[in-house]
């Protein structure tokens, strides 16, 4: 690693940490391949979005302060999630009063923070990956990445360079899958209806692999696919771009 390689702090995200570390390691590989020095600050837990979206601004602010402190001094902060990325980039500055030093610190962090795939393409200039992943895939645009951060073409561009992978678009790829954080357990019926519609579109493509950039959405969709007995495998985009086809798909053992 050259001494002037950018120092990138990985924001692991609480779901990747707990449920699917392989996504984190895929992200590390992609960042290192792109020429970054990757570190994982110890004091990170969660971005605070569950509190923020539940109206608990005080706890959201406390967690934001913790993240701001933990990620001080790195050139970039990268998250394998548009949702957590969107929280830091779009919402942290809203948590603090205008004109305060805290807001300035939140804005400074927001300016250095990126969602993984868009970081690779926009900041590191990555145009393709050296990876193999045999799959007929379809890509679901997770809401926050798409609408808060404008991530749309970037994953498709990089996925197009994966050897053995073909991508077919589903109808309504930009419509919510029904996850929505605590929404999916507070309103399970509505969530399930949205999920059913989404998976119909997934299955209509004939794809054998469903790819997305957010583990929350993926756990939601994979959980239902497996409940339905579907053969469609769910994968995080980082795993696919890193060529990690050996780790079992989400919600599967083999």
């Amino acid at each position, binding site marked *: 690693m050259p001494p002037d390689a950018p120092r990138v702090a990985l924001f692991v995200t*609480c779901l990747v940490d707990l449920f699917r570390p392989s996504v984190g390691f895929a992200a590390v590989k992609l960042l290192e391949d792109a020429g970054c020095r990757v570190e994982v600050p110890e004091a990170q837990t969660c971005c605070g979005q569950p509190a923020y979206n539940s109206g608990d601004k005080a706890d959201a602010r406390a*967690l934001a302060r913790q993240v701001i402190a933990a990620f001080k001094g790195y050139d970039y902060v990268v998250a394998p999630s548009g949702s957590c990325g969107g929280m830091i980039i779009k919402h942290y500055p809203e948590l603090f009063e205008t004109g305060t030093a805290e807001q300035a610190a939140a804005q400074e962090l927001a300016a250095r923070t990126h969602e993984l795939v868009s970081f690779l393409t926009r900041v590191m200039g990555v145009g393709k990956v050296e990876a193999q992943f045999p799959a007929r895939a379809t890509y679901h645009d997770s809401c926050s990445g798409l609408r808060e951060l404008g991530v749309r073409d970037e994953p498709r561009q990089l996925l197009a360079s994966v050897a053995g992978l073909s991508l077919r678009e589903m109808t309504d790829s930009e419509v919510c899958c029904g996850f929505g954080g605590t929404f999916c357990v507070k309103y399970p019926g509505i969530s399930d209806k*949205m999920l059913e519609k989404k998976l119909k579109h997934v299955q209509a493509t004939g794809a054998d692999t469903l790819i997305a950039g957010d583990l929350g959405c993926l756990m939601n969709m994979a959980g239902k696919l497996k409940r339905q007995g579907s053969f469609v495998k769910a994968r995080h985009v980082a795993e696919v771009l890193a060529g990690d086809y050996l780790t079992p798909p989400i*919600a599967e053992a083999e």
Partner: protein
Amino acid sequence: MDMSGAAFPDNVSRALADGKLQYAMTETGPRFIQKRAKAREALPEFDQLRDQARDIKDHVLANLDVYLERYEARVRASGGQVHWAETPDQARAAILGICRKVKARLVTKGKSMISEEIDLNQHLAENGVTPVETDLGEYIIQLRNERPSHIIAPAVHLTRDQVEADFRKAHTHLDPNRDLTEIPSLVEEARAVLRQKYLAADVGVTGANFLIAETGTSIIVTNEGNGDLTQNLPRVHIVLASIEKIVPTLEDASTILRVLARSATGQDFSNYTTLSTGPRRAGDLDGPDEYHVVILDNGRVNVLGTEFQDMLRCIRCGACLNHCPVYNAIGGHAYGWVYPGPIGAVVTPALIGIENAPHLPNASTFCGRCEEVCPMRIPIPRMLRHWREKEFERHLQPAAMRWGLGLWAWVARRPALYRRATALAARILANQGHGAGRLASVPFASGWTQNRDLPAPQGKTFHQLWKERRR
């Protein structure tokens, strides 16, 4: 309609189990979306117009008193009368008063959401005045004694055969053998009945899409022309509108009109854009003898200057409903009050109190599609979140959720403890996955597992593995 706070979950269950509703929603939902997308694509300056439209309304809201007074003066100068109503009661009383003064028996009505907001039909009927809705969708739901389930497509929740059955039941004086299997024949049927009503009506009530301060004009847009007949044929025309419908000039209205129909139905313009200014003047060929405007506040003034002010920019196009996956899953009636969908989830708590609509701001995934398509650039998700903050402050959310969230946040603020807790959780859940990679049921997680499996953790947390790798 049960409006109590607890009704939403029951309404949702009913809606999800209603096959006809689900069919109707999947039939029409996508069509609105495609049409708007096409209209937007065909107008390169669409997004600039949205900015202009937003700025016009922001300017109005910052100077609302000035424009309302200017409007009132212009209406009076053109021979009309303005009635201010702070509450639904006052608005109802004003309208009934006008009806009584002219001894009205029959009132035709153009489409008006404010009329729904003040329950005008019920009030008129209880006082011996018969209201007849003339918008086809409104007419249908009046036959069914329902509320609109959509702001611009009130009967969107119904299938064609349901409407046919309603017509056969109500129109008993018409030939029972008539063909009502196609939509044009349903339209003909309604038209045959409504023509008589237009001619017999003593008073016509319309809503307003805009009130123009510089001229004292009110503007309505319709696709059926029913508004014109409603306001021109009876002796008395009553415009019923809320305070935020005001814009300074006709030029401003035309700017907003350019985004209204495109956002609503994907039309460049609605079929009819109808302007009315005062009663018939000497020499006019038609028009009413009396022209009244009833302007309702109903709590909107309290929204001015708060974090919710932007909701008053709404022009009721319905685009946020059409694009909302939650609305499309449950339909409009589940929302329990007058205004459904994302904008309803923002407006309803402001008008009837958050304690009476505690679920509405929470029943959203914050997917952001509403804000993305709103022609007035209303930050709907942000305002939904503000409502959740109010609920949190006032302890209106379920105690279990509050307690669970508090515990989680307490642990998440202590990284070392959090590391140990997550490592333990990952190990336990992974073991319970029994090598299947997923769990079919998990204690305290039935909200998740009733409809889907829970993917099992891989076994160790990322932080554990990262530490091992560094060793």
